């Protein structure tokens, strides 16, 4: 279907510097009902997911943005002359997960959950902008308080913290581990 609304939305998502939310699109397209915009975005997501497209619109970080399809990672890295992107270390990922679930958190709270001093992992995560300092805790020593950042959601392809693995998913993993041991 040839929908001009879908085209406008596509161009807006393309130029947006961060995931483009429904609210932003509405603010730009004054008077267009949210339902129409949502329908246009849905159509766009479906179109770009098709096999004959190399670039797709994905829903992430609470909004939409363009990304390449995973199949072309090798060629893109060749073009940009970038090595395979590094994963986080296990220490880094653990620290990030602890903060994600229990934020806001201080260094000593994170370290207590992990049973390991987490100062240097926090540093790495700060440098990668996956967490941010949001202030201080009213507690002895007024320790700095950390939260996950908007980049964190993007990094893991989440739309909000609600999309973190649920209690059920975690319980399932633990069940599987138990079964594997038996």
């Amino acid at each position, binding site marked *: 279907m040839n929908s001009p609304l879908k085209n406008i939305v596509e161009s807006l998502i*393309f*130029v*947006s*510097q*961060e995931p483009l939310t429904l609210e932003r699109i509405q603010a730009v397209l004054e008077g267009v009902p949210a339902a129409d915009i949502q329908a246009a975005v849905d159509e766009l997501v479906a179109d770009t997911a098709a096999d004959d497209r190399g670039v797709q619109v*994905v829903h992430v970080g609470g909004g939409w*943005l*363009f*990304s*390449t*399809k*995973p199949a072309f*990672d090798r060629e*893109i890295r060749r073009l940009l002359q970038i090595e*395979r*992107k590094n*994963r*986080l270390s*296990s*220490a880094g*990922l*653990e620290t*990030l*997960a*602890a903060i994600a*679930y229990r934020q806001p958190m201080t260094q*000593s709270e994170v*370290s*207590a*959950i*992990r*049973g*390991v*001093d987490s100062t240097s992992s926090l540093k790495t995560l*700060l440098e990668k*902008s996956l967490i*941010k*300092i*949001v*202030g201080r805790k009213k*507690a*002895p*020593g007024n*320790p700095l308080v950390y939260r996950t950042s908007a980049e964190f959601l*993007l*990094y*893991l*392809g*989440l739309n909000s913290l609600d999309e*973190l*693995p649920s209690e059920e*998913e*975690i319980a399932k*993993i*633990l069940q599987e*581990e138990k079964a594997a*041991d038996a």
Partner: protein
Amino acid sequence: MTEGAVIPLEPTPDVPPCAEAPEGYQVRLDVFEGPLDLLLFLIRKKKIDIHDIPIAAITRNYLEYLDRKTEINLDREAEFLFVAALLIYIKSQMLLPRETDLAEHEDPRQVLVNRLLEYQKVKAACSILREREDAQILQWKRNFIPPLHGESELEPVELSLFDLSESFFLMMKRRSADETRTIRGRDVSVEVKMKELVGLLRERHMIDFLEYFEANASLEEALVSFFCILELVKSRMAVAVQDELFQTIRVWLRKDAHRTDHHE
């Protein structure tokens, strides 16, 4: 004050070889993220019910692993030792003669169990998040698209406290390059810490150990504090009360110890 002095180590030949270890029997400590990871590993390998941990046995296994350490650095060692001290503490609590059976919420192991369960959840979540990370790494997004036109008058700014502070202190460092002080962790001796603790106890009569712990920051310092308190309690100079493990420890100086010289 080593763990070996507290508990004689018996060889347990039934420790399973670990897949990660090339030498078969040698399991290196550094394959574990930390002491909790090691504990969870032992619990799994021994098929132990996490809600009913045989503390004596697990403590023995745990100390054994610690004993095999080859080259872990001091910070890590301190963390493993800290949990060793806690295990021993729980064991001692369980050995105390009691009038009646412990109710479940009084089980000295409960807080350790809660903590292990919590950590286990984080680890399980990590395995899911790792998959997400792997999937996302393959998708390239264009986060930077040059703005189409010049600056407008009023713009919201993205500002990070970390960037701001880092910027300031780097600038100051640059300016006074010669007189730069290097900040290192203090060397904390038991003697100094003991004096400090006793002084503080005299002044305030009671200290909240966790509060004290947080103020001291470095793990070594905290460990030393912990051992000092154990030492004070052992030598009957102080009374320490902890309602729940990992909660807070309140410490009083015994009245009759006020004038004694506690430093031999």
